[in-house]
């Protein structure tokens, strides 16, 4: 027993019967080399992984640039019907950077919400708030209808039926020199039409929703 303890205490790996031991190697030396092997490997792996990952993740933190875009004269839009306008929300990719917004003049009789009072024109995004299919305005029924999964919205873009989780997104508008201008950065609204920074479709904003689906650094409220 005493002999065994002495064996345990020896600083030579050979004495302690450690696998792969060889003549003259001490435990401290082995421990140092083990640490060196692990850390050198980790440094080398991190040296290519971290930059590549940062490179791929970078766009998450880059804020999109937006601008005001002219969409037509004041008379082009009425109070009761939507007119589709095509705007470029993402310059530099040609056709793919464009989107359609449905625009109508603000009607104080129906747009009673206080959040709307600063908006002279109501501009509704065509991205369905379910998973982003292109909705269409059907004038006869006064409904936005999604062709994919059965989402239906009313005149204000609020959900009437189907799976959408919040009203349709909107764009800020303003009037300059007799022309209507639309800001290409959209914002999201909850079922009370309160404004939030833009969320992806399918992310509810009522109740706990706004915390479960936090706003992103890349898209802020305009």
């Amino acid at each position: 027993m005493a002999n065994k303890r002495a064996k345990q205490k020896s600083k030579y790996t050979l004495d302690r019967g450690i696998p792969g031991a060889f003549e003259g190697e001490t435990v401290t030396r082995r421990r140092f080399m083990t640490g060196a092997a692990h850390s050198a490997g980790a440094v080398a792996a991190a040296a290519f992984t971290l930059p590549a990952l940062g490179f791929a993740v970078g766009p998450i933190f880059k804020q999109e640039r937006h601008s005001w875009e002219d969409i037509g004269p004041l008379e082009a839009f009425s109070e009761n019907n939507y007119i589709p306008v095509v705007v470029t929300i993402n310059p530099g990719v040609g056709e793919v950077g464009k989107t359609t917004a449905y625009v109508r003049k603000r009607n104080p009789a129906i747009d009673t919400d206080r959040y709307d009072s600063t908006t002279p024109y109501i501009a509704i995004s065509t991205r369905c708030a379910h998973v982003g299919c292109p909705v269409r305005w059907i004038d006869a029924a006064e409904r936005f209808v999604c062709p994919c999964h059965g989402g239906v919205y009313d005149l204000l873009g609020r959900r009437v039926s189907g799976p959408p989780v919040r009203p349709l997104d909107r764009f800020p508008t303003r009037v300059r020199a007799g022309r209507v201008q639309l800001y290409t950065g959209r914002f999201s609204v909850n079922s009370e039409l309160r404004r939030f920074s833009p969320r992806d479709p399918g992310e509810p904003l009522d109740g706990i929703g706004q915390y479960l689906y936090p706003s992103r650094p890349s898209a802020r409220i305009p």
Partner: protein
Amino acid sequence: MARRPAPPLPSALKAPPPRPGEGNGPLSPVEQAKEAGITVVDWVDERTSLSGAARWLMFRKVPKGTNWYYTLGSATLFAFLSQAVTGVFLAMFYRPDAAGGAYESIRHITDDVFLGQFVRGMHLWGASVMVVLVFLHMGRTFLFGAYKYPRELNWVIGVVLLILTMVMALTGYLLPFDQRAYWATIVANNITATGPLVGPYLGDFLRSGPEFTATTLSRFYAIHMLLVPGAIAALIGAHLYLVTKLGTTAPPWSKVDRRPELSETEV
């Protein structure tokens, strides 16, 4: 062939009798080629010892009762190889340019390139065939109880392969950049973004920004032709290694003959 008698020639013209160790005269070209082949294989084997691995892989026994249902796995592998090869050739013509180049290059492949539509068709329909086969293979594994001990890990690898196959099928149909491709990508991306807490960031990561941008298509292209195929190839390697090591399952109805002289294990 009957041997004819040698002509009566003077001894100086006669071919010398074979020396010991020379065998039976010069080898025929066919035999020479065979010898050369054997030499090359020997040379490689002496330096790699691969013949043992080849024997282990090819001459292992498959259990009694192995039937046609057991070909579904290799059929899936074959569909993957077909996808890989046709995909490489399509990549030679494809341009991941969202501003119009992608759609135009696919149109070019389909309409102008020699056999272009055929190869693109093989890739397109090969995807459907591979999806069907991968599901059939999984169904077979489930019905035969082949996921049970000791093959649990291989089932897990198989499920990863199934999901990666579906990822390939999805990222693949963005690339032609027609309407179906575009909207399917938007929807798939938004579905990813509906995961609580991390979803929004994951969506931004896949799309490379809050909206569809020029880089989105390149990202999906890189995922489709580098990242996922690499992972699939590596996992197929692991899957096959485990299949070979553990052996393919016997059909669950096989009757085991428990006579003692049969139960000695063979490799």
